């Protein structure tokens, strides 16, 4: 027992596992010796497998364990498998010098029966590829359906909430406005300011070649108010808040919090989804407005230094360059993009299944999808506004 209880991890002085095998008088003798613990068994295992595959002309086998200093479950598994294989070959197997503890362990492992394979059989590569394609297509179709269903459910919830405004959760709504709107301000301001400056500088350099550098102002004003201010903000918000929605809702789903909510008679639509969608729909236009202003400020600064245009003149020129609708077009699109980002983010969160890995996967796909949809939506709006001549 003494030898058994010491594991001797890292004790390299311990005598490694070994065995001697020999056949005499048609008796196969296997004498195991040394430290039969998992650390030392790999080599012995390979050799034993080969030996057992062709036991020669023996009809009886004797396995001796008296010289074994340590004997763990891995050793027991190997020995009992060896014995079973020898019996399959028609040999009678006996044990010798087995201590009580070894006996218990062999019994325990032996009683578990033949181990089952622990991995799925491999699938040929071409089938895997075909399978992947099919799976992806089906998943896309299923996801489109689910997304439609989800949008429908959200619209129903919105309707119910309008009919009965007391259902609306004000506290989470304000909380998410702060998290996805107010907290995003520094980043949005800085980025749009810089992009405004860069666009102005590049524009001025190019336009100067025609002596048309005063039109730099038109360039900045139209580009920013119509497209860039909103697109930049939407992409930043998709990356910041869309992903946060997915991760938050996803980990709640994983820990069965959403199921718990349902059993307590709370509707996750009311509690989680609607406040987020509403908060983003309100904050994205506000953020866009600030982004537009910061872009113009950045551009104005460059124009001031490069073209010596005073702020007063700059403002007047901006007013001349853009009508209300240039600015309006940008702002009108904002709530739609906000809704897309929030819906995609929340839906991805609800689609999380049990594992932590799935939270990560859904978060990535939510950001990718919402940025993709934001740009598609922008293109559709461009076509629409061209058609109606704005």
């Amino acid at each position, binding site marked *: *027992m*003494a*030898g*058994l*209880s*010491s*594991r*001797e*991890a*890292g*004790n390299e002085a311990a005598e490694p596992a070994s065995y001697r095998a020999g056949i005499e008088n048609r008796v196969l003798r296997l004498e195991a010796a040394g430290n039969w*613990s*998992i*650390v030392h*068994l*790999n080599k012995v*295992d*390979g050799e034993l*497998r080969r030996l057992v595959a062709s036991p020669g002309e023996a009809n009886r086998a004797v396995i001796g364990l008296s010289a074994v200093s340590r004997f*763990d*479950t*891995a050793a027991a*598994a*190997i020995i009992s*498998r060896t014995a079973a294989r020898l019996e399959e070959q028609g040999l009678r197997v006996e044990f010798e010098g087995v201590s009580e*503890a070894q006996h*218990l*362990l062999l019994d*325990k*492992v032996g009683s*578990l*029966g033949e*181990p*089952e*394979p*622990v*991995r*799925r059989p491999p699938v040929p590569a071409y089938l895997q590829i075909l399978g992947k394609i099919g799976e992806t297509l089906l998943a896309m179709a299923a996801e489109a359906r689910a997304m439609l269903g989800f949008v429908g459910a959200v619209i129903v919830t919105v309707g119910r909430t309008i009919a009965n405004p007391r259902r609306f959760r004000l506290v989470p709504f304000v909380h998410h406005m702060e998290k996805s709107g107010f907290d995003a301000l520094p980043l949005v301001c800085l980025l749009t300011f810089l992009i405004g400056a860069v666009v102005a500088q590049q524009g001025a350099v190019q336009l100067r070649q025609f002596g048309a550098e005063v039109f730099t102002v038109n360039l900045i004003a139209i580009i920013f108010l119509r497209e860039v201010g909103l697109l930049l903000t939407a992409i930043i918000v998709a990356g910041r808040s869309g992903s946060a929605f997915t991760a938050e809702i996803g980990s709640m789903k994983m820990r069965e919090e959403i199921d718990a909510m349902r059993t307590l008679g709370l509707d996750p639509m009311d509690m989680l989804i609607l406040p987020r969608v509403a908060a983003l729909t309100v904050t994205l236009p506000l953020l866009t407005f600030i982004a537009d202003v910061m872009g113009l400020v950045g551009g104005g600064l460059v124009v001031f230094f490069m073209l010596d245009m005073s702020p007063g003149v700059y403002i007047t020129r901006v007013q001349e360059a853009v009508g209300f609708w240039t600015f309006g077009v940008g702002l009108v699109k904002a709530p739609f993009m906000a809704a897309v980002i929030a819906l995609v983010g929340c839906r991805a969160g609800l689609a999380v*299944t*049990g*594992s*932590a*890995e*799935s939270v990560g996967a859904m978060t990535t796909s939510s950001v990718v999808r919402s940025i993709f949809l934001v740009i598609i939506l922008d293109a559709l709006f461009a076509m629409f506004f061209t058609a109606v001549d704005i």
Partner: protein
Amino acid sequence: MSTSRKGEPIIEVEGLDTRFGDNVVHENLDLTVKRGEIIGIVGGSGTGKSVLLRTILGLKRPDAGRIRVFGLDFSTLPEAERRLNEQRWGVLFQDGALFSALTVAENIQVPYREHLDLSQELMDELAAVKIAMAGLRPTAGTLYPSELSGGMRKRAGLARALALDPEILFLDEPTAGLDPIGAAAFDELINDLKETLGLTVFLVTHDLDTLHATCDRIAVLAEKHVILVGTIDDMLRSSHPWIHEYFHGPRARAALAGK
């Protein structure tokens, strides 16, 4: 490392203080676990049983006091030596703590891959043996943790804890969430392992049947330290109100009657 004897101290905790901010969990806690015994840790919810386990494992830093496992102070050991010695214990966390990206079999093989050099064939075979030992269906090896029930996750966690045939097994509420038959089989398994491998078991549990069926000694955690260590009989004789209530309550009587 000389050959170690049964009965010598294997875990020594002296004067342990732990706190989270202002929340003092342990104050001047002493506990000694002997090699080859199964010690049950009991105490009300929130008395710091799980925290004690995590502190012994070095997952939480003690605020004062000394902890020695295998006679070694892990906090002062060099990195390489600490890792080597960490292979000498196995841990089953309260909710299994399986790696969700890996199948059950792959979970069990993690320590083999990390610490040993074994053929895939042997690893698969050993994983299957551990799966069967922990009382899981043989087909469970190919499943992912999210495809298992709570009780199965626990068994899979045990199979992983047993992967390297550790000297000490730390179990945090192993039978909670198991069906009674499964729990009884679990008790038997723990006893078997102790007998065959000379395992020391540090068992946090609320399960009175498990306490009766397996534990050599019981340590009661209350009032921020270990108030009593002893056999079941010592517990039954104690006049401390909490201990009395615990071991003489209706459930305790039922568990005793079942013996």
